[in-house]
C-alpha cells in the first residue's frame, strides 16, 4: 500500500509546476528598451554582432596580454535549440581567431546552478584561462561565483545577467520588453479595438520571458485588444496545438496569436489549418520553419528575435579585452532586429533545419551550414 500511495503521489507531482508571482512589469525599463529599439547602432555596418547601442565604453588596457591566449567559457547548458545554435556560433567565431587563440575551453553546466558554480571555480583555479566568458544559468545563484572570478581574471557575461558590476562587460540584446514591444505593436497595428488575441508562452517565472509578455500585454491593453487567454505550452508542439484547438473549439474568434518564443509557432498555425479556419495574425520568432510557413502561406506575421549572434560577440569581446582595446560597457547592448515581410526572403535558407535561428549572423562563418545541422 505504501508503495502504491507513493507512486500515486509521484504521478500527481509530475503534473504540478510552480508559478511565481513576481513583478516583471517595470515601466522605466519598458521605456528604455522602447528607445533602444529605435536607436541607430554604432559599429561596423552589416555586422550586428559587433555593433552596440549607446555610448558607454570601458577601458581594458590593464588586461592586455601578448601572444597566444586561452579563453574559457562556462556555459549554462545546451538545453534548447537556441543554445545549440548559439554554441555553434561561439565555436565558429573562435575558429576565426585561430592565430590569437591557443585554446577555447568550454564547460557545460547542464542547466544546474551548483554545477556551474563549481565549473567556474575549477576554471579559475586551474590557472589556464586568460579570460572567462560566462553564460549564467540563473542570475542570483551565479553572482558570488562570478564575483570571485572577477578578482582573478577579466570576466565577460552574456545572455542572462548577474547582480554585480564586476564583469568587464555584460553582453545582451535589447531585452524581453523589446521583444514584447516589437511583437505587441505589430499585432496591435493589424487588429481593431475589441479583437481577440491568444497569448502562448513557454513557462512562468522566467524573467526574460515574463517581461516579453508584460510588455505585449501593456500594448494590447492600451490598444483595447482583448487577451482571450494566456497559456503555457512548455515548448511542446503537441500541447501547443491542443491548446489552440481547445480555444478554437470554444467558439471565440481568435484574430491573432502572440508568442513569447517561436519554436511552436507552426504547431499553433496547424491548429487553424486543421479546423479549416483562416490563419490569424501571428508573432513568432526567427526559426526557419516559421519563416518558411510565413512565406509559403503569405501570413500576416512578424519574427521578433533574441538574436543568437550574441554568442559571437562574447568571443569578440573577450579577445578585445585581452588586446587592451576599449569595449562597449559596462553593458554591451546589441541591436535586436525583427524579421518583417520586406526582409523575410533573405532569412530563409532551405538547407537549414526547421528550428535553426536565422538571426545567427553565422552565414559567413567557417563550417556553415553543416556545423549548424544544415545540408550542403
Amino acid at each position: 500500500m505504501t508503495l502504491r500511495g507513493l507512486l500515486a503521489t509521484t504521478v500527481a507531482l509530475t503534473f504540478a509546476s510552480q508559478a511565481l508571482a513576481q513583478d516583471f512589469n517595470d515601466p522605466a525599463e519598458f521605456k528604455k528598451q522602447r528607445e533602444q529599439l529605435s536607436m541607430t547602432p554604432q559599429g561596423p555596418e552589416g555586422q550586428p554582432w559587433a555593433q552596440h547601442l549607446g555610448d558607454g565604453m570601458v577601458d581594458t588596457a590593464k588586461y592586455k596580454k601578448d601572444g597566444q591566449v586561452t579563453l574559457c567559457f562556462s556555459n549554462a547548458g545546451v538545453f534548447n535549440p537556441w543554445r545549440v545554435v548559439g554554441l555553434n556560433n561561439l565555436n565558429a567565431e573562435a575558429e576565426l581567431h585561430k592565430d590569437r587563440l591557443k585554446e577555447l575551453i568550454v564547460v557545460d553546466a547542464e542547466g544546474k546552478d551548483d554545477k556551474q558554480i563549481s565549473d567556474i571555480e575549477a576554471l579559475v583555479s586551474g590557472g589556464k584561462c586568460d579570460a572567462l566568458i560566462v553564460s549564467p544559468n540563473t542570475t542570483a545563484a551565479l553572482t558570488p561565483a562570478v564575483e570571485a572570478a572577477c578578482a582573478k581574471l577579466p570576466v565577460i557575461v552574456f545572455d542572462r545577467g548577474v547582480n554585480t558590476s564586476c564583469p568587464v562587460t555584460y553582453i545582451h540584446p535589447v531585452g524581453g520588453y523589446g521583444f514584447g514591444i516589437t511583437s505587441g505593436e505589430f499585432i496591435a497595428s493589424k487588429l481593431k479595438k475589441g479583437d481577440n488575441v491568444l497569448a502562448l508562452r513557454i513557462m512562468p517565472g522566467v524573467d526574460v520571458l515574463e517581461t516579453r509578455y508584460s510588455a505585449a500585454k501593456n500594448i494590447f491593453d492600451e490598444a483595447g485588444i482583448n487577451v482571450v487567454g494566456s497559456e503555457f505550452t512548455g515548448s511542446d508542439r503537441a500541447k501547443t496545438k491542443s491548446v489552440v484547438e481547445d480555444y478554437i473549439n470554444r467558439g471565440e474568434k481568435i484574430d491573432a496569436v502572440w508568442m513569447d518564443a517561436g519554436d511552436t509557432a507552426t504547431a499553433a498555425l496547424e491548429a487553424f489549418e486543421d479546423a479549416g479556419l483562416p490563419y490569424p495574425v501571428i508573432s513568432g520568432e526567427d526559426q526557419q520553419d516559421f519563416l518558411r510557413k510565413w512565406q509559403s502561406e503569405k501570413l500576416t506575421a512578424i519574427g521578433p528575435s533574441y538574436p543568437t549572434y550574441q554568442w559571437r560577440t562574447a568571443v569578440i569581446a573577450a579577445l578585445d579585452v585581452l588586446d587592451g582595446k576599449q569595449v562597449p560597457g559596462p553593458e554591451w547592448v546589441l541591436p535586436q532586429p525583427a524579421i518583417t515581410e520586406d526582409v523575410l526572403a533573405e532569412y530563409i535558407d532551405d538547407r537549414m533545419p526547421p528550428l535553426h535561428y536565422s538571426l545567427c549572423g553565422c552565414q559567413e562563418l567557417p563550417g556553415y551550414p553543416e556545423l549548424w545541422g544544415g545540408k550542403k
Partner: protein
Amino acid sequence: MTTVPQTSLSLRRPERLALNAGLVIFVALYAAIAFLQPNYLELGLFMNFLRRAAPLVILACGQLYVILTGGFDLSMGAVATLVVLAASILINGDPDTTWAVIGALYAMGIAVGLVNGLVVTFLKVPSIITTLGTMLLVNGLALAWSGGAARGDLPDNFRNLGRLVWRDVPVIGTLPLAAVVLAGFVALVWFGLNGTVYGKRALAVGDNPRAAELAGTPVAATRILAFVVSAVSAVTAGILIGGFSGVSVNAGEGLELQAIAACVIGGAQLLGGRGSIWSAVFGALSLFALFTLLNLLGLPQALRDSIQGLILIAAVGASTWRIRRRT
C-alpha cells in the same frame, strides 16, 4: 472442488469493476466538458478528441501489459521522442522512404523492449530501475543524434497518420486517421489479452510469479513479451504524435507517467495481477478529458495544475479504496 467457483468469481469481479471505474470517470468528465462546451457533443469534435487522445490511449494499453505482469515501463516517453526525432532525420522530407523508416522504427522499438525485458527477467533488475536506465539511455541517444535541436522534416504521408481527417464520411461525418489507428491498435491488444492465453499468463505472473512458475507458466517469456508490446505501443504513439504536431525534441516528455496514471485511474493494480485493456483505454480517455476540461475552464495555470493533481489523487485513491473494500 467447492473452492474453484469462488476463486473464479473473485477474479472476475474486480475486472468488471475496473471497467466501470474508468468508464464512469470518463463519462462524468466528458459530461462536464459538454456542459461547458455543448459542441463537444457533436460527433466531429468527439472524433477530434479521440484523435488527440489516441497517443495516450495507445501508450496506456502498452503500459498495461507491463503493469499486469507486475512491472513499470518508464522508457515509453523516451522511445516516443526518439521515434519522432529519428523519423524526421531518417525520412528528411522524402515521402518515398516513409514506410521503410516506419518499419525500422518498429524494429528499434522491439529492440528496446527486448533489452528491457531481458534485463528485468534475467538480470533481475527491478523494472522501475531498468526502464529508468533505458529512458536515460534512449533520451541521451536521441539528444546526441539530433544535436539537441529538431532536424529534418516529416513529409505529408507520415504526418497524415496523426493529422489527416476524412471529411464527409457517411454517418459519422468526419473520421481522423488517428482514430482508425487507435481502434485497430486497441483491437489488437484486446485480442492479445482476451483472445489468447497470454492474458491469463500475464495476470498470473503479476499476481504471484512464483506460483505462476510452479504452475508451468513461462514467466520469462511473458514478461519479455509485455515489454516488447509496451515498446511497440510507444513507437505507434510516437508516430501519431509526430504526425499530429511535427518534430520536437520533447515530444514524449512525461508521457510514461501519464500512461501509468491512466492505467491506475482505470482500475489497474500497480505491481500487477489486476486490470483489463478497458482500464487502460478509459483511464487514458479520462485523463485526457481532464486535461481538456481544465483547458476549457480557462483557469490560471497554477490553479489548474493543483486541481489536476487533486483530481488524480482522488481518482486513484477512490479506485484503490473501492477495490480494497471489496476484496
